[in-house]
């Protein structure tokens, strides 16, 4: 690639260094009681996604951005937890983690050493909907970094010693997770919504016993079954040119062959019997209680996604929950809500970490906000317009950094959507009506699933005094 010098920030010139701006001014006296009107919104168009298919069948999405001398590469493989059986919980993320532990040509330490020398970083991760191999590199070294990336992908050593080392690390991670109240709350909520046999409902590593039952041979066969170009998608964002990048990719990935990987499908979670019970996980001496209140919701590809995104903005993206729990009551620092729409199913939850002595009051406020959205206090036209405007005007902020651009494409790829799906979402959002919005909320609304993680000795009685049934659940033991 050739060098181009594009100074994209120019500091204000024309005044002497450390100049003093003249104090006299010809503008009329400022009336601060009137907020200034914003000028006209300036046009913004997202950089195009160039799409290609390599000769081995690997789909590639490229976004050329010359603004910084960096390149971000993401390989998304349909080899997440949805591809493993419940008995093999953790196998998908274990396989991903082992990729960067060494290849048949380079030890783990050599990999790290060579990447560092290039100013590059390579990480692997397993999520419920896919495995990720992520490279961040200086543009001038991208070709050398891609050679290592290709080696990691095509020739992982998957050695017994690396397997044992990574398994030990994950056993410790299981223990560390058990100490975190937010993790306990999310896991208990997921288990209730999806059931513990569903890949979205079981804890990612389940138990130490489950981890000890895994064998390196399982990893090797999982890798062989799913790590193929016809089961993956590559995203490249940054200071690259498609014309130079494609031959580079053909070269570095030439021995990676398709294998007719079967399509992925996951049964819908069993329909949950709804009840308004507080599932209480005891965490003695907890300084706060973690609250979760929510419903099973929709998969990302569902036509109600735009409507529920707006509903979620109104409820919990600095919305009603924030104003009630934080700005009126001071019970919580960062309360909100999350629409977690994944490839095969989803959930919608309100959340808060609240001071222990206000647990019952805070839960009662949270329940009220969640219920009122579908009853006495539906989304108003004004709230719809505000939320729609916020999301649309926020668009250019998702394109500041290469990582942001790559993240959005990566999440579409994980959900098996096309690169154009985000534009389709924005179109839907522009057209969304208040009646579509209320029917989407009505569709998912049910008696809420409630989880509280906190100090039972201090919160159980106040929770019962709210008139709610309280059932004590054991956090799944990390053993």
């Amino acid at each position, binding site marked *: *690639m050739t060098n*181009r*010098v594009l*100074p*994209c*920030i*120019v*500091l*204000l010139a*024309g*005044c002497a*260094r*450390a*100049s*003093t*701006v003249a*104090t006299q001014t010809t503008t009329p006296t*400022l009336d601060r009681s009137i907020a*200034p009107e*914003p000028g006209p*919104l300036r*046009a913004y168009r997202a950089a195009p996604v160039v799409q290609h298919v390599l000769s081995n069948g690997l789909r590639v999405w490229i976004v050329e951005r*010359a*603004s*910084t*001398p*960096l390149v971000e590469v993401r390989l998304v493989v349909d080899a997440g937890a949805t591809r493993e059986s419940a008995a093999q919980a953790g196998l998908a993320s274990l396989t991903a983690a082992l990729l960067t532990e060494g290849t048949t040509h380079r030890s783990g*330490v050599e*990999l790290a050493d060579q990447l*560092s020398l*290039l100013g590059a970083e390579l990480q692997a991760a397993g999520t419920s909907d896919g495995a990720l191999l992520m490279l*961040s*590199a*200086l*543009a*001038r070294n991208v070709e050398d970094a891609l050679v290592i990336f290709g080696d990691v992908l095509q020739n992982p050593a998957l050695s017994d010693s690396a397997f044992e080392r990574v398994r*030990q*690390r994950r056993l*410790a991670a299981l*223990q560390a997770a*058990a100490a975190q109240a937010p993790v306990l709350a999310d896991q208990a909520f997921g288990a209730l919504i999806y059931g513990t046999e569903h890949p979205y409902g079981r804890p990612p590593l389940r138990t130490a016993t489950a981890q000890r039952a895994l064998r390196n041979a399982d990893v090797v066969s999982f890798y062989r079954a799913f790590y193929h170009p016809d089961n993956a998608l590559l995203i490249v964002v940054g200071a690259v040119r498609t014309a130079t990048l494609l031959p580079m990719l053909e070269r570095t990935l030439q021995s990676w062959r398709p294998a007719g990987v079967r399509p992925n499908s996951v049964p819908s979670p069993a329909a949950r019997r709804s009840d308004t019970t507080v599932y209480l996980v005891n965490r003695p001496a*907890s*300084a706060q209680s973690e609250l979760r209140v929510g419903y099973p919701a929709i998969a990302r590809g569902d036509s109600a996604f735009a409507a529920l995104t707006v509903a979620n903005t109104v409820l919990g993206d600095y919305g009603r929950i924030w104003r009630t729990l934080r*700005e009126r009551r*001071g019970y*919580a*620092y*960062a309360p909100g809500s999350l629409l977690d729409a994944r490839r095969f199913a989803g959930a919608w939850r309100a959340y808060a*970490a*609240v001071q222990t002595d206000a647990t019952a009051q805070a839960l009662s406020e949270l329940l009220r906000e969640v219920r009122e959205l579908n009853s006495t206090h539906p989304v108003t036209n004004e709230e719809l317009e505000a939320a729609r*405007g*916020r*999301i649309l*005007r*926020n*668009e*250019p*902020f998702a394109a*500041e950094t290469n*990582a942001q651009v790559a993240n959005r494409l990566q999440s579409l790829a994980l959900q098996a959507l096309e690169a154009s799906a985000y534009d389709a979402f924005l179109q839907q959002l522009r057209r969304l009506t208040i009646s579509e919005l209320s029917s989407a909320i009505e569709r998912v609304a049910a008696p809420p699933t409630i989880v509280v993680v906190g100090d039972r000795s201090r919160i159980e009685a106040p929770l019962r005094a709210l008139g709610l049934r309280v059932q004590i659940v054991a956090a799944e033991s990390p053993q």
Partner: protein
Amino acid sequence: MAAAACSSSLLATTLILSLCSTAEASAQQMAALHSAAASRVHHLANGLSVIIAQDTTLPIAAVAVSYHVGVANEDSGRTEFSHLFEHLMFMGSRHVARGEHLRRIQDAGGRADATTDFDRTYYYEEVPANYLEVVLWLESDRMGFMSDSITQGALDLQRSVVENEHRQRRVNAPYGMAFWKALSTLYPPNHPYALSTDNWLADLHDATVDEVASFFRRFYRPNNATIAIVGDVDPPSTLRMVQRYFGDIAPGSAVARPAAVPVRLDRDRYTMLEDQVEIPALLLMWPTTRLFSSDEAELHVLARILADGADSRLHRRLIEHDRIAQSLTATQESWALAGQFSIDVHGTPGHDLTPVRNAVDEEIAQLAGAKPPTEHEVTRAVNQIERSMAQRSESRLRSAMDLAMYYTFTGDADHGSRDLSRYRHVTPGSVQETARRYLSARRVVLSVVPKGESRLQAAP
């Protein structure tokens, strides 16, 4: 606001480059480009410093208002007062109703927040560029007319929010107090960075409306602030707009700066925290040096040689070879008055931390003695630093914060354009010499152990 109290994340662990660079520009080219765009800092008559940088690649703008005040300016017995004050800055001002600031920025599709650090407090917004004037109206109203809104009710509410932030981020989070406990052990009670982990919530509780008002009058004046604007803005008209909104705010008296006090420990300080954790952890902390002082670049490179990635020395020794650790980090944190170097190791459930400390000490002794850093290790570290600087420069908000930071602490907003050259001058010899100078001195040794497992702490 939704911000880090005394966040250590901005000035400290991340390296900084303020200007956007070019496709494939080498470090030298980047430096040349930035010094060509030599920085101009404008001063309003009331003392407000103004820095404007244009970037037209996206129709957005970032504004950072940096007040030169932080933990270092807190009175003793007032731990976290500067952060509590930061929250009150969102409770409205004479012409802006409570809640209006955030609502206007969010309805614009933007974001507003603030962070308090040891030496400075940032208030910031990211907005579509056509909303710039709205931001200037909001920020100037709270700089000029905030004191009207300081009421007991506002104070009580935000105190409760800050208490919950403290619980969520520190008390209830595993290891959440470790860094603070080590800092409070490192800095003596008469040091500007002294803080009390034991009296944290009590100190917050004691703050009064009068103290809030007087803190505002002392520190929240235009002559103690810098505003940096980066984005799709026209520099001359933006400067006129800043003059229009901020020009009539009265200056305050000159702010006395706490002196830079080097810290020296007369002996190793062993201390321990019992926490709701499963894995014992060891935090070693040495007093080192402050922001932009001569050894700072070496300390950043040293941190990477010791602990950045699977090829780093401590990783190879403790994780790969000895298998006595799950994860580890090393960090040089540099603030305006002092700084510290930390090594943080998560050990093995049920295992004593003494062998962990011994292994770390042996590796440091090797590096300072028979196994000095190699050219290869230094190059690796500097290349990683170059990438992290370039990544940081992608964000207009980070760039605005950095322009204000460089100006506040070096007197030169454009200093970022030369900052990478400090790292280019680092040699294996200078890293070794720095390691000898600082890491052979007395330090804090903090063990974090599961409740009831004090036997696991590192022994003196």
